[in-house]
């Protein structure tokens, strides 16, 4: 599934809907995707699995390198033009807030360098986070009434949550990641998760983390990792 139409309206608050529409019209979702707990609102509508917890902020992921053929636009202006106020962290990461609701951008961290990327063509900054590139694997284009946006496939979000849950320092966030994995496990095609795993090299440490996460949610590791073709072992 790479394209889906949702006829239901009112899934998001009016304010968020207006922002998504403006970002979509400007072309943000050609490269970017909606991530975080708000994606579950759409999964609920597509797959019928409700994850009830929403946060007071919305996250968007942007690839560190944008399509060179795209024309840039001032995304910050689009956001602040809708009454969102910018705030800048010491790291240089700029976030936005309106009536207690936040907007943040994140991007993939290559290597071990923490920090912030300046996404010049869009005039925004994005916090680098590991394994975020997974979310860009086969994203779903969602057509809502008057809004077109992209979200990660449930398989890639599942794998992403599984791996980052074991890298978290804060246990409550790790528990939230695992809880989301439990919900996603009800709707995903595990063979696609295995395909995603096969596409990249995993360090021994990362494999151990995946194994530990599977154990915590009561999922057999082979179901995710698949069978090692060379020796028939997992």
């Amino acid at each position, binding site marked *: 599934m790479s394209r889906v139409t949702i006829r239901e309206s009112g899934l998001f608050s009016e304010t968020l809907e207006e922002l998504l529409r403006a970002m979509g019209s400007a072309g943000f979702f050609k490269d970017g995707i909606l991530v975080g707990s708000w994606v579950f609102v759409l999964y609920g509508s597509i797959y019928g699995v409700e994850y009830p*917890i929403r946060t007071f902020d919305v996250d968007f992921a942007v690839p560190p390198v944008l399509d060179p053929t795209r024309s840039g636009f001032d995304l910050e202006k689009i956001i602040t033009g809708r009454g969102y*106020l*910018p*705030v800048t*962290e010491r790291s240089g990461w700029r976030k936005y807030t309106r*009536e207690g609701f*936040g907007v943040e951008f994140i991007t993939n961290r290559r290597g071990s360098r923490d920090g912030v990327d300046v996404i010049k063509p869009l005039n925004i900054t994005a916090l680098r986070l590991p394994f975020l590139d997974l979310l860009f694997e086969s994203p779903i284009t969602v057509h809502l009434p008057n809004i077109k946006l992209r979200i990660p496939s449930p398989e890639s979000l599942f794998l992403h949550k599984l791996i980052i849950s074991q890298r978290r320092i804060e246990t*409550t966030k790790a*528990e*939230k990641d695992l809880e989301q994995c439990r919900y996603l496990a009800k709707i995903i095609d595990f063979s696609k998760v295995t395909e995603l795993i096969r596409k990249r090299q995993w360090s021994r440490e990362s494999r151990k983390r995946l194994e530990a996460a599977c154990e915590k949610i009561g999922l057999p590791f082979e179901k995710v990792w698949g069978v090692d073709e060379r020796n028939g072992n997992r």
Partner: protein
Amino acid sequence: MKQVEKDRLVQGVLEDELRRSQEMVRLLESEASDLPRGSLHLRRKEYKDRSYEYHYMKYWEDGRSVSVHVPRADLDRIREELERRKAYENEIREYRGRIKYLERILKV
């Protein structure tokens, strides 16, 4: 999922939101501190049968009211910055209200 685990998860989400709100207040205050505070006023003066008008900014400092003349060339910028400061202060109020509420339910 057991009820105890669910409760812990909800508690964790609320604690995260409390932390986010506190951090946001700190960031908003820092942004607001770079902007002028006070209010803009217009003063009319009569001098030798002629009337003059000029703008001044009024604010409190160390317990006393201070008035500062605003040159015409700076008027639009100052007006815009005062409005922006007000927007930041309203946003801070929004988060403070939420912090109070979250602290009450989390019994912090």
